[in-house]
């Protein structure tokens, strides 16, 4: 499914239509697992100007964490269910001292914690921010590598979103594509919740700006 929203003045909301931008007093309280927040409280980013307000704060939908959660569950149960039978089936010429099993098991769980932590950090700090002036995409692709892209609201030429598949339809998530004028790079919000509402909100900001 792909929806295109050309940015025409005729699309601006009538006074009776519900606005996606909340009144000033409606602010979302952030939780560690927040993936969609309108005017979030207590969120500030690196290049934020003093009079710039965060209108939308987005992360990828929580469903993208499911493979990592399954991997961590598998790593947790492996020493209990899989490894004993694996070692039983091994025929070694030497007897392995007990210390190796103690250190091996402890290291296994520390490594599992490390896998869970890095997966969560990558999700937590991969963010999309919409302010009244800019659209910002901050990606942490690998360890110690970050990418910061931004587009000014007045440079946005076209907005669209796509959402396909059973899971995307059921959990209401998809990709939002922001096309900008000139040489500026396009910004893609990948796997964000409520893509239609994101497009609607950015459209309203553009209408306000012009």
């Amino acid at each position, binding site marked *: 499914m792909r929806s295109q929203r050309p940015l025409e003045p005729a699309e601006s909301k009538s006074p009776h239509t519900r606005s996606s931008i909340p009144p000033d007093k409606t602010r979302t309280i952030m939780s560690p697992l927040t993936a969609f927040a309108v005017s979030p409280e207590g969120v500030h980013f*690196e290049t934020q100007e003093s009079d710039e307000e965060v209108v939308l704060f987005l992360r990828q939908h929580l469903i993208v964490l499911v493979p990592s959660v399954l991997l961590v569950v598998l790593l947790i149960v492996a020493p209990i269910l899989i490894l004993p039978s694996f070692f039983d089936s091994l025929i070694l010429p030497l007897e392995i001292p007990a210390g*190796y099993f103690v250190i091996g098991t402890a*290291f296994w769980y*520390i490594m599992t914690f490390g896998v869970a*932590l890095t997966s969560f*950090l990558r999700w937590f700090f991969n963010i999309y921010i919409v302010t009244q002036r800019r659209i910002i995409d901050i990606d942490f692709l690998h*360890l*110690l590598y970050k990418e910061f892209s931004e587009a000014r609201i007045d440079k946005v030429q076209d907005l669209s979103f796509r959402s396909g598949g059973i899971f995307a339809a059921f959990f209401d998530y998809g990709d939002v594509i922001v096309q900008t004028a000139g040489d500026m790079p396009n910004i893609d919000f990948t796997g964000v919740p409520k893509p239609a509402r994101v497009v609607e909100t950015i459209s309203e900001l553009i209408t306000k700006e012009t």
Partner: protein
Amino acid sequence: MDVATLTFVILKWLVVFGLAMYCLFAVVIIRQEQLMANVLEETFEPVLRLAAIIHLVASIAIFFAAILLL
């Protein structure tokens, strides 16, 4: 020194070397978390920093435990 003892001495220092590498990885995670926290200020960030520090402390503890126990 017989073959079995020599094998376990070599194995012990290979394990210790691997654990030292993992400690470096844990330090990198802390640095990564700091870099990320500079980009985004969020209320939950101190909890993540604590988790990264716990991970590093556990990695260092297992490193010294391996030297003592193996």
